[in-house]
């Protein structure tokens, strides 16, 4: 009898113990490099302190790779919150992998610009946007360019770097080209025609953003369509570069947060998303990484003018493609890009 009572007490104690040790812990799937370091310092550490929780940082892979991993694991748990490029969030949502996010779970949602609430289609908020800009070598490209047309200027033969369409910058360049030809993401033919015309000017066929840095350092290339935030980081490093949103306007890529259906600690995951959308975190993020925040309460000091598009007016000038369409069309565009540029190069020889 006594043994039973002891065992029962022990069982109770163990149950209580495990309840107390129920970890307030989530795994956040972010990006590596500077992004990861800043994320830890500006967002994760204050969050852990304020909520007495723990955030495990998983820095593996690009947005597309995060989607691939999520798709491969389906119902099995891999992480609680993830960052995604807009179109990857939509693809994941469509495939039934994401948990819907509403203002009841994330009270900061109504503080975002309308497009940032809307474009995630309920699968998550757009947390920041980053416009495609024209990056140029200030010493070599004179006068300072103000139009995308400079990429096609025969004076800059071999001096332009571009990314493959399988990568964001290449995809958005294709869209810019389509807009310049009077089309858009749904009438893409003119875009491909313009990309073919660009081929003689391309001196570097690159993919990921960090690859561009040495090519600009060596002055192998002088011009490139590039992401605004990363361009500002390169300028901060002291390279003689300029970054401009051309007069024709530009398109912006969106970053989103999402919570997968397979997440273990959804409540804490929602709190994390909400915390990231608070004005102080959004502003700290914009100051360091030069992404445009989507919380409409955020302002930046005057020295950021021209470096980060902040405020309703500046954001109003950016265009956002139909990301749903991008998610669907991209596979076909990758194939078409491979074939058309191969042809254009063969013809050129």
């Amino acid at each position: 009898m006594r043994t039973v009572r002891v065992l029962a007490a022990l069982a109770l104690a163990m149950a209580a113990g495990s309840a107390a040790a129920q970890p307030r812990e989530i795994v956040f799937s972010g990006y590596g490099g500077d992004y990861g370091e800043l994320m830890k310092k500006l967002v994760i550490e204050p969050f852990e302190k304020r909520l007495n929780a723990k955030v495990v940082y998983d820095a593996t892979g690009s947005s597309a790779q995060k989607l691939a991993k999520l798709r491969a694991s389906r119902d099995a748990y891999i992480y609680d919150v993830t960052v995604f490029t807009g179109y990857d969030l939509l693809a994941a949502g469509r495939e039934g992998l994401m948990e819907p996010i509403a203002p009841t779970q994330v009270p900061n949602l109504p503080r975002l610009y309308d497009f940032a609430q809307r474009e995630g289609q309920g699968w998550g908020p757009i947390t920041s946007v980053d416009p495609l800009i024209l990056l140029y070598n200030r010493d070599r490209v004179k006068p300072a360019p103000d139009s995308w047309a400079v990429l096609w200027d025969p004076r800059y033969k071999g001096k332009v770097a571009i990314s493959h369409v399988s990568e964001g910058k290449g995809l958005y360049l294709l869209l810019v080209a389509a807009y310049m030809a009077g089309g858009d993401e749904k009438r893409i033919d003119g875009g491909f025609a313009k990309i073919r015309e660009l081929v003689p000017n391309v001196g570097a066929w690159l993919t990921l953003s960090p690859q561009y840095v040495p090519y600009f350092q060596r002055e192998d290339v002088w011009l490139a369509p590039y992401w605004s935030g990363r361009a500002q980081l390169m300028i901060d490093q002291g390279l003689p570069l300029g970054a401009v949103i051309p007069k024709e306007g530009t398109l912006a890529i969106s970053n989103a947060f999402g919570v997968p259906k397979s997440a273990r600690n959804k409540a804490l995951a929602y709190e994390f998303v909400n915390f990231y959308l608070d004005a102080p975190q959004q502003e700290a993020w914009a100051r360091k990484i030069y992404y445009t925040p989507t919380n409409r309460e955020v302002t930046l000091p005057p020295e950021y003018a021209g470096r980060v598009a902040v405020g309703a007016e500046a954001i109003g000038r950016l265009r956002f493609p139909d990301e749903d369409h991008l998610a669907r069309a991209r596979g076909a565009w990758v194939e078409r890009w491979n074939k058309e540029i191969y042809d254009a190069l063969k013809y050129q020889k």
Partner: protein
Amino acid sequence: MLLLGVYFLLPLALLLAQSFRPLVIGQPAPPGLTLANYVRFLGDPFYLGTLRATLGLGIFVTVLAMTVGYPVAYGLARGRHRGKALLRLCVVAPLLVSVVIRTYGWIVLLANNGVVNQTLLALGLIGEPVRFMFTYTGVTIGLVHFALPVAILSLVGVIEAVDPALEEAARSLGAGPGRTFLRITLPLTLPGLAAGSMLVFALTVAAFVTPALMGGPSLIVLSTLIYQQMTVTLEWGFGAAVATILLVVATGLFLLYQRLLSLAPGVEQPG
């Protein structure tokens, strides 16, 4: 056996199964099996061209690496000089460095404003930079360097195994160095040459980093296509089909090569 199953057969089986799966982007995978992924590749002259380019590049790099590697391996096997240890270290050293780093090294050397072009320009040997980057030449240079340690190491052993007395006998019977090499050394080392070139060929057709960073859109190899499908467009079925086709064709070439070698007189099966 279990290890072989887990590390080799299981992933291959999964890959094979994936290649028959249909996929529509943005929807849960539909059920059923399809040949569409194979039809898409084999029915398209562009994709058949990338297959040809991959195999052609593989053969070209293999011939170059074995040709360049043979004298080095010979020096390592026969040399009695003191620099031998250093030479051996030089051969093995690249294997200790990640291929990504090695490729970035080549980019620093071969870029338009890279070390090689700057030197040639300063010496007045060229009037404008030679284009290495994003050309066939650049990728070939990178891949030969990538494959060279394997080529050399696979040859050193077999050359060492040839009794020097045989070469000395040939020489003392009046054969010149060239004739000795062609009639004695080369035939006796053919098995090593065969095994080495198979390894180098396999490494080259599967290489991803060098073509991705140094090749341009005029040289699309299958590893690049597979990467695009697996990580970007997420059309896994097509990616798996491309991988399966590469595997089948490369294995077919292996078997053919082995068959040809077994017909050559005096050569044992490599293995």
